[in-house]
């Protein structure tokens, strides 16, 4: 009985991506993988302060900045709730299937794709690449003792519930489990975002999935 209880508790404690075959995933399991799992994290990101025109001018600039992460955020408090997801990780793609989630942010090219969801939007018009271009140099994957990896592209997709920024990091980064922890850092307009991912935990069916 005691053994049975232990097994039940252990199995109850095991997250779906570890304890269940994919075919047994429920929609709820999939939702959890998409929102809070080794590949997807909810993040509360801080917002930089809005400068006045005098401050902008004193800093050598003029006019308020516009664009993704700025427009439509004037009334935001000092933070914004977002989600960061490794779109190319297999469990994420499987969970998307299970959860019947559609309209993926698609980025041309191969690489590690990391998406940031929930950016308050002002319904910006324009080509996703053009909108994302200024954000490209303000994001990086960071590992201890290795050079920062910059995305090769960034695209912005407008959705009804906000905007999504998808970064494409080159495969040449060769992220491995030995890196232990990898930090994703990005500045999106006023949003300053940092999220660590535990590479030891990002295993799926015996493989590191990114």
């Amino acid at each position: 009985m005691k053994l049975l209880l232990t097994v039940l508790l252990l199995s109850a404690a095991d997250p779906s991506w570890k304890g269940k075959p994919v075919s047994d995933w429920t929609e709820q399991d999939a939702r959890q993988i998409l929102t809070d799992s080794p590949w997807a994290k909810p993040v509360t990101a801080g917002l930089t302060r809005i400068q006045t025109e005098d401050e902008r001018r004193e800093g050598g600039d003029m006019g308020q900045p516009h664009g993704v992460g700025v427009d439509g955020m004037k009334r935001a408090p000092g933070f914004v709730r977002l989600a960061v997801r490794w779109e190319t990780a297999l469990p994420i793609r499987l969970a998307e299937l299970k959860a019947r989630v559609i309209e993926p942010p698609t980025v041309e090219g191969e690489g590690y794709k990391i998406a940031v969801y929930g950016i308050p939007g002002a319904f910006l018009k324009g080509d996703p690449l053009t909108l994302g271009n200024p954000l490209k140099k303000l994001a990086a994957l960071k590992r201890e003792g290795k050079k920062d990896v910059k995305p090769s592209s960034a695209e912005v997709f407008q959705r009804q519930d906000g905007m999504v920024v998808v970064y494409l990091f080159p495969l040449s980064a060769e992220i491995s489990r030995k890196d232990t922890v990898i930090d994703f850092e990005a500045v999106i307009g006023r949003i300053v975002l940092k999220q660590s991912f535990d590479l030891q935990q990002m295993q799926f069916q015996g493989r590191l999935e990114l």
Partner: protein
Amino acid sequence: MKPIFMAPFARVWAAIPFLFGALSFGQGIGLVGGIARDAASGKPLAEAQINAHNLDKGTDNATVTGADGVFTFTHLEPGSYEVAGTKKGFRKSSVHVEVAAARAAGVELPLQLAPEGTAPAADREAQLLDRIERLEKRLAAVEGNSASAAPKPVAEMASVKPPAAAPDPAPAAPTVPMAAAAAPAPPAVDLQTPFADYDWTWLNGNSRQHDTPLDTKYFSPEFRADTFYGEDFNQPKDHSMGGSSEVFRNNEVQLEDLSIGGDFHVGNVRGRVLMLFGMFSATTVRNDASPAVGQWDVRAAYKYVSEAYGGYHFNVNHGLNVDAGIFVSYVGLFSYHNFDNWAYQPSYVSSNTPWFFNGVRVQWFPTHHLKIEPWFINGWQSYNRFNGHPGIGGQIKWTPKPWLEVLGNQYGVGDDNIGLPNRGRYHTDDSVEVKYYDKPKEGNGLDKMAFTLTGDAGCETGEGVTCHGGHGPYDPVTGKGGPKQSFLGYMAYNRWWWHKDLYAFTLGGGQINNPGRYLALVLPINGADAISGTPYFPSYPGAPFKAYDGTATFDWMPSQFFTFRTEFGYRHTNVPYWSGRGGITPPGGNNGSPADFVCATGASSGQTILAAAEAACGGGRSSVWYPDLREGQALLNFAIMVKF
């Protein structure tokens, strides 16, 4: 929905060979270009979503058509593709394309208008079902593989790359309630924009506003109104006060500063104009003697302008600007506009040093904490150049900590005296601002305290004066020697804020020693200004001038755009300088000859030397009129200041 090869898309096909050549693609990729059109009108469709689905591998590439309806995929692996176009209000259109390595294919996607309310949903459903079907196939394949595959050794798995491309279905944004479980956000700091990392609105000389309500995409307007009422305890009967560049009339309500303008900004091109009205438009220009050099009415040209420049912003380091025109000077720490300052009447090292420069400046921000700003200007607060040399100077501003600003202004090279081409001027003005207490209170207590300390030193040398003295009397043959002509001064202010910045109190003051009086403001006796000078307060080598002052300032700030200020100050000089009860206006008013002594009748003596004036006025000291000048001035003032 027809695949076309070598179709008549002049622009697309013209671009394809170029793209292949210019981008130096490897031999393993192909290119698809095309155009999406409204099937009914044949017009190109902008912003249509185009998806190229690899039928062999199940991967997708997406893009959007440009304004001309044209799209291109430049990195497609060879294989069979379904290229589909979708746009709101149109039915999906797709075409099958074979992509070969180093080859270009062209497609045309005619999109049919969808019947309102039906087709998009149907298309969307079909698209979703299609995606789900494809993913289910992949899932089945994955599960089959994982069931049969033995775990791989760690070394083999150490470096993992994602699949060649992501399969379809899409991520959805997590719901806010789930995301809300995240930990609180750390304070976000902008480390790119200069001086954007912390709140610097506490600084003296900076606007305290947190919002720019009138800002637009290309123009950020600015409006300032500063109205003053002063009660000079000397009670000059002509209501005229001298010795200040901030307060001018006694016992009257006066509009000191009405400024209207703003910043224009289009991309990297920038410009600022601030038109100036009110007392400042008359009292600032009169302190500049350079309009006496040469022709053209330069005072008239510039009197209604306090700032006017255009420039360009270069994206170098943290920013690099080149601006040309008239810009404000922060020599002496305080802003030209009293709304920005902790006190209404700043001490001498601010009030007697430049408020503007005319020339070219470069602002370079090597880090977000540092500004290096060299100037190439006409002279020391001058519209024109006095002699042969330009003024060269610059500012360095450093904000290493959120509670500390270090600021230095340096000036040299200029020859800033009319008719004295070999008398050079040098000046250093250095300040530190420290916020030593910052604890926002829920209640009404003290929430902030800060102080500023400014030190100035300068001198003139050549043509009868020296920086240090001690070289004997002036020798016209060698051009050496002469009395010391220098400026040494300091000012210090401390400010307390309480009741969540609703109130503030500032205590401060300073002291100067300016032998030769070259930075002492010319008193407006009989309408005198910097060009005319006045015989009643002459500047000459060795003329003594020592002064000190102090102010106590109380601010009520019910809005970030409004300040009610009351201030009591006392100023003292070692020579008679401040308007007394008798005033500084001759009997009958100004006679038009401010450079001459005035007779007791109010008429001009026509003489700049007292003995000659006495003779001209009828003889004896009593025949000459004298302004009533005192060594001290106590002033209580009130001001209402608005800035948007």
